[in-house]
């Protein structure tokens, strides 16, 4: 097996290891209908609403005769009712942020920091150089450090960025970025603090000649506010960048696999970035940059009118400083000209001069409906920054090269026996190579042949949000041909490692009929074959199913685009497989004929006494003419070797007759 650890664990042992994270996560999203029904039978009052009036628990089943005794009054309860801070909420519901268990915590902490680094570099137009360090400490603790060469963070912001949940620069704008909620890194800080009591250490420098700031930050969970334990200036050699260190309790043994996968796949989707990964007990991994071309800058856009929900619209109306409705529509939204604003106002039967904040609920609703009924140009697509065909391809090649060079996975069960099979395939490819037309989509990596195809779809819109889908596949090598393909999901260049089955991207791939593209596919499952499939969705707002950003919601527009891209890639793959099958067939055919010719020549010599090599030569010359499996047509041109005896005009008598 070529890339043992990038492939989802397949050995029974590997499966056990990966399972806890996956399994627990799959339970996460909203309880299923059945669960809800079980928790609250339709007839019973909602348990939380009137706990005091519904003491069903205290009464043994069937003995409802005794009148229930009141236990708490509304006043008593009022004493307990108070605001819950966002940090308190997430402390209890840490799984929502991806910190459900110690093996996953490691990955989530690294991921939040790395995503931020890549975002910051991209925004600043810097080619990222990211260093990830995991250090082992006594007592099941680990120190996670992520350092970048990004623009840095100004001193005043550092405490809030790392010590306050829901604080960030990306939530209030519409622009493609990895982070979007303003929770990520502070959640990691909070988790570290909860499990070890230690503060996070942040060092950041914003430019040459400026001082680097060294902070030690904790998070006051009651108030959801930062507590700065230390703040000092230190000398730092590099010009700019940020380093964050978090100590946390983690399960390295079980967590390392997904961490490596995350970094590999992040490198794959960010070919412009370089990564160094230092880890305990194993060699460092370096992912070099595959392209020195920074991604196209994603431009911030205003929301598209068709994407706004009524509540959001009402909020915007109440907060707007615009003097009239017409101006409000033009200023707050993209693609609304003043003529179009007039049209919307007319349709809503509201004057365009009306002060936005004066609209009541019914009028806001009328406006919302009018927006929905008006034809509006699709949102500008400059806000998207897909990876691009060429870079997906480079990323895949780079990925295949690096992951291969990496230490073999000791758990790659059948690994030992597979190289033989694979090498055989590679040799066959080599043999074929001379007379096979060069296939630009075929890459030879580490002695193995891979077919690579990529498709970038034109941008589309779901609920007013532009998005774009890319699909890339690598097929071949000596990957096992009888196992499901590897599906790598990405959203805004961030790999999604968990909740695979809950994800709309998986669904789109499973529902694509890959048998059309010469792969086998069990019903309702991923196709089977030696293939890695990459699916990337780029959007200003990726509809995740939860805050941990692990699965994409099932929007039909998105699913359809993914399928179209997959089909396009699939067609390329099918053409390639067909070409290969044909080439294989031809090569096999030719070599088999050569063997048979040798045999036949020998037998004919034994029977006729004619020279064996002459017969063989004749047959070989003939073989060239008979191509393509035709039955008994004459070859176009028969090459009779110069100076050869004329065709058996005077057969020499068999020896026996001479007796």
């Amino acid at each position, binding site marked *: 097996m070529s890339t043992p650890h990038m492939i989802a664990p397949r050995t029974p042992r590997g499966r056990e290891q990966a399972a806890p994270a996956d399994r627990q996560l799959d339970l996460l999203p909203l309880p299923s209908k059945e669960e809800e029904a079980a928790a609250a039978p339709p007839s019973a009052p909602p348990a939380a609403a009137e706990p005091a009036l519904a003491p069903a628990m205290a009464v043994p089943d069937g003995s409802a005769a005794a009148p229930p005794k009141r236990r708490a009054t509304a006043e008593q309860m009022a004493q307990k009712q108070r605001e819950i801070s966002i940090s308190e909420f997430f402390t209890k519901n840490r799984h929502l942020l991806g910190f459900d268990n110690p093996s996953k915590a490691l990955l989530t902490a690294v991921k939040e920091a790395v995503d931020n680094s890549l975002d910051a570099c991209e925004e600043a137009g810097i080619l990222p150089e990211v260093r990830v360090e995991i250090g082992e400490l006594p007592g099941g603790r680990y120190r996670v450090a992520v350092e970048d060469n990004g623009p840095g963070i100004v001193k005043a912001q550092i405490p809030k960025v790392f010590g306050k949940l829901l604080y960030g620069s990306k939530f209030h704008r519409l622009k493609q970025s990895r982070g979007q909620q303003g929770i990520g890194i502070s959640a990691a800080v909070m988790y570290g603090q909860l499990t070890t009591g230690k503060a996070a250490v942040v060092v950041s420098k914003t430019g040459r000649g400026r001082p680097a700031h060294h902070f030690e930050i904790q998070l006051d969970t009651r108030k959801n506010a930062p507590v700065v334990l230390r703040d000092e200036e230190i000398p730092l050699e590099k010009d700019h960048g940020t380093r964050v260190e978090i100590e946390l309790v983690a399960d390295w043994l079980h967590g390392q696999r997904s961490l490596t996968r995350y970094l590999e796949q992040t490198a794959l989707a960010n070919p412009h970035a370089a990564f160094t990964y230092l880890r305990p007990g194993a060699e460092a991994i370096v992912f070099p940059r595959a392209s020195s071309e920074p991604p196209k800058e994603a431009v911030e856009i205003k929301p598209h009118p068709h994407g706004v929900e009524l509540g959001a619209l009402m909020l915007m109306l109440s907060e707007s400083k615009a003097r009239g409705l017409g101006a409000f529509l033009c200023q707050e939204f993209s693609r609304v000209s003043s003529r179009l604003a007039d049209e919307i106002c007319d349709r809503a039967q509201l004057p365009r001069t009306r002060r936005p904040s004066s609209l009541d609920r019914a009028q806001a609703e009328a406006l919302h409906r009018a927006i929905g009924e008006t034809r509006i140009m699709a949102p500008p697509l400059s806000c998207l920054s897909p990876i691009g065909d060429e870079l997906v391809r480079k990323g895949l090649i780079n990925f295949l090269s690096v992951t291969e060079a990496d230490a073999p996975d000791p758990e790659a069960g059948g690994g030992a026996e597979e190289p033989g099979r694979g090498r055989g395939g590679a040799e066959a490819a080599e043999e074929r190579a001379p007379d096979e037309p060069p296939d630009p989509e075929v890459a030879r990596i580490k002695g193995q042949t891979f077919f690579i195809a990529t498709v970038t779809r034109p941008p589309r819109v779901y609920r007013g949000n532009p998005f774009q889908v890319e699909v890339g596949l690598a097929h071949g090598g000596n990957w096992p041909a009888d196992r499901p393909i590897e599906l790598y999901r990405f959203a805004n260049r961030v790999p999604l490692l968990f909740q695979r089955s809950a994800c709309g991207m998986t669904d789109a791939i499973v529902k694509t009929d890959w048998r059309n593209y010469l792969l086998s596919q069990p019903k309702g499952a991923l196709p089977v074959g030696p293939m890695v499939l990459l699916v990337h969705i780029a959007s200003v707002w990726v509809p995740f199913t939860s805050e941990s950003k692990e699965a994409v919601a099932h929007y039909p527009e998105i699913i359809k685009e993914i399928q179209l891209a997959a089909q396009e890639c699939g067609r390329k793959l099918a053409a390639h497989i067909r070409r290969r099958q044909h080439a294989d067939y031809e090569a096999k*055919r030719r070599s*088999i*004929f*050569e*063997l*048979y010719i*040798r*045999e*036949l020549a*020998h*037998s*004919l010599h*034994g*029977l*006729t006494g*004619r020279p064996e090599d002459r*017969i063989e030569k*004749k*047959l070989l010359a*003939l*073989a060239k*003419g*008979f191509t393509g*499996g035709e*039955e*008994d*047509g*004459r*070859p176009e041109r*028969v090459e*009779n070797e110069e100076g050869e005896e*004329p*065709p*058996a005009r005077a*057969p020499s008598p*068999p020896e*026996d*007759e001479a*007796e």
Partner: protein
Amino acid sequence: MDATSRKTTQKLVKLAEDVVAQASAGRNPAVEVPTRSLANVRFNEKKRIIELGGDKQKRLFFNVAQAKKFMQTFLVGAACRELIAEGKTTSIRDLYYLTKHTLGKTKQNTFEEQEESDPIIEDLEVTVDALREELHLFASNKGNLVGEITLVDSGDTIDARRMGSGGWGVPSIVEADVIQFKRHEAKFVLLVEKDAVFRRLNEDRFWKKHHCILIHGGGQPPRGVRRLVHRLHDELSLPVYVLVDNDPWGFYIYSVVKQGSINLAYESMRMAVPRARFLGLSSFDKERFGLPDNVTIQMTEDDERRGKQMLAYPWFEQKPWRREIERMLKSGVKLEIEALSSMGISFITDEYLPKKLREGDWLE
């Protein structure tokens, strides 16, 4: 080298020369192999034997599906030519090992198993129109003979009355140049399907009491046994009786003895005994002889399918045969010859066969 051998050699060489000539002329080398399949056999109503039709199949060398067989045909041809030249004869199993070898540096062999080489031999026989024996080949020996006859086998005189419990082993090649009949008192030939039944009858000296020649072919009788029975019938005018199990396979064996097999249809002329008589076991024997119920065996799906196929054979067209087969299918059970032992160990010798022969209770 005798005339037959010379002639056979010429036929083989000609086949090879044709191929060389075709190759030299830039044509795809081809040999024409008479088709040995059900579609190309005819039941000759007059002679009442299965005959090979005139269909031929072109076997091309430059054809992915046929190249291997083509190569194999000449591999066997060359081996046979050598055998003839050296004056040696060998079994078809030996020939398989003789011609089997690895192709180049692959894992493929010229032949993977004997099942692959046997049909090639048969192909060669029909293609050059030579008998297996003329190619100096024989099938495995299987089948024994005892009874009231003295014959010569490769110069040795064999008194078949004094062959002990096992009998004389019938060789594969029983042509007149190898086997000559010297003297006999036999009135008929009894061919039984099974060795065990043969031993029982031999121990009881059935052949002595009833003046016959007793032969078994160990299931489907091999070519040597069939050819010998044919000769005994033809040259000594002895009627031939066949005793087989009451099941589709037994009936099939009888039918092969009688009119030849589809596979070796080209040899029916010298093998088949169209007037061979089916003595038993009949589907009605169980009742007639009052055999107990517990001796029957349930028919399998295969048996049933085979039985139904047989109803379509032209030689089982006559009413009594239909009754036999339909009765068997309807009862859903089959009966082995050994089932007769349930009536006593020598019931078959003392009662069953004498009664059948006496009463003329057979089918033709």
